[in-house]
């Protein structure tokens, strides 16, 4: 525990306060291929961790481990003080934006409500008033009240993604796991969805793990970055990780990081890429 405690103290977390996420000597591989190993990571409560890296570097797999959908090949993981397990009610999840099946069968508010108690058995007739109040609050928090009664299939990608955020937040999670939530959104929505997640996490004190390949929309919220490339990784503050030296070392080929009008531009990473992009991840 000492190593983890040290990180916690360095982050200004009171000693004894458990971390939101704790990975110890964690490793993950599929068959002969190792995605990453020796990963020690402690995410403090209220911390915003951005996970970056090329396709196939194991970003999504890391999230699946934290969701309890994927077992580690080595080491241990704990989330919100317990085992990483599906159904951990302290965990909220925002997936990639994609078209939902049967999307004319429910309204936005139903999607949010299912995020609250859809995993429970029964019909859900008890405490409906309380449930409705929570759903209303979550809808209002993401500015989705106006279209909450429309079928989700009739909504735009940006509107659906706002509902996704409400769905993840309605259970008041301690840990918020986001898997490329900005993918296929236009710039304006990338910005607003990032704002929603960043602000909500700050207000509630939830820890955030935000997997993305686009750092800029979340740069101002990022406390630390975990950058994964081909089994190598670097963890640190954005100013430490997002540098020409660090990324060149990680990619093992010349990569340049430029700062243009408050935005980071990474040149050369796409070409350097990952040699195993077709394997491992879905």
């Amino acid at each position, binding site marked *: 525990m000492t190593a983890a405690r040290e990180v916690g103290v360095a982050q200004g977390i009171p000693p004894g306060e458990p971390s939101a996420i704790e990975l110890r000597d964690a490793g993950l591989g599929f068959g002969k291929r190792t995605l990453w190993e020796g990963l020690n990571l402690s995410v403090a409560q209220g911390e915003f961790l951005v996970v970056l890296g090329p396709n196939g570097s194991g970003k999504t797999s890391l999230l699946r481990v934290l969701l309890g959908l994927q077992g580690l090949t080595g080491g241990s993981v704990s989330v919100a003080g317990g085992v990483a397990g599906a159904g951990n009610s302290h965990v909220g999840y925002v997936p990639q934006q994609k078209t939902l*099946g049967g999307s004319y*069968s429910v309204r936005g508010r139903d999607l949010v409500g299912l995020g609250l108690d859809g*995993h429970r058995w029964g019909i859900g007739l008890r405490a409906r008033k309380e449930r409705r109040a929570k759903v209303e609050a979550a809808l209002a928090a993401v500015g989705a009240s106006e279209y909450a009664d429309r079928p989700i299939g009739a909504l735009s990608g940006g509107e659906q993604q706002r509902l996704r955020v409400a769905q993840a937040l309605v259970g008041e999670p301690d840990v918020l796991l986001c898997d490329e939530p900005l993918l296929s959104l236009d710039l304006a929505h990338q910005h607003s969805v990032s704002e929603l997640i960043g602000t909500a996490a700050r207000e509630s004190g939830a820890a955030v793990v935000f997997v993305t390949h686009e750092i800029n929309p979340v740069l101002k919220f990022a406390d630390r970055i975990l950058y994964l490339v081909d089994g190598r990784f670097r963890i640190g503050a954005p100013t430490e990780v997002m540098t020409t030296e660090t990324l060149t070392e990680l990619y093992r080929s010349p990569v340049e990081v430029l700062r243009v009008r408050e935005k980071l531009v990474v040149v050369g990473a796409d070409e350097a890429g990952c040699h195993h992009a077709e394997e491992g991840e879905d």
Partner: protein
Amino acid sequence: MGKLFDFGTTGELLGFGFVQQALLAGALLGLVAGLIGPLIVARGMAFSVHATSEIAFAGGAAALLAGIGVQYGALGAAVLIALALGLLARRGSERDSVIGAVLSFGLGIGILLLWLYPGRGSNKFGLLVGQIISLEGPDLTLMITCTLVVLVVLALIYRPVLFSSVDPEMATARGVPTKLLNPLFAVLVGVATSLGVQTVGALLVVALMITPGAAAARVSSSPLVTTVLAVIFAEVSMLGGIVLSLAPGAPVSAFVTTISFLIYLGCRVFARTRPQYATPAIAT
């Protein structure tokens, strides 16, 4: 044509016990179909319901040949095939063609078994086009038992099934045991389908299991409202179909499917007339 609206005869026939039994059987089926229909529609399972009903038909025909109650053959076959289809990946690319292959095979086998059956013909075609009104009457004990089982299990698993139907990825992430629920729900669909095969017949089960749910989904997106509407639509089709068929003595299923389809058309037209599609008038 005058026979169609001979209310005197209808009233007279409604006094008979076997007609009342048929109405009760129809009401049970309408309830089950209405409750389960919106979920089937949300999961895109219409085609597999059709396949299940053809297999139930083959099972019923086999039971007829073997001298066992038709209803048991239909139920057993429907549950088995529903389970098998439920274990198929939900959105696999092969799913459609697998179902198609199974469906036609079931129908073919069923027809062969009926041809082999030496007995009289009324039971034979009842399996295909319905035989709810007969002097032997439906097996009410079995129907009531099946209805209760479906209602109880559905009440237990309703919320996670709805979750995994509309949002499977998130449901899995939240710990919904989809691998358990998919086959379990499929078995419920199998039981419900076999009830349908005994009443409206294998060819027309879809009219009760799918059409009311699909019609309700056109006019509302609230799970509660669509479920209530689907039950009403299914009951109106089923009971209305039975009552209308009495005087002319025509096959029940013709009336059931017609009413059910007209309701569906009406719902589509109604949805068209509204500026904001399916903005629910009733908040839940």
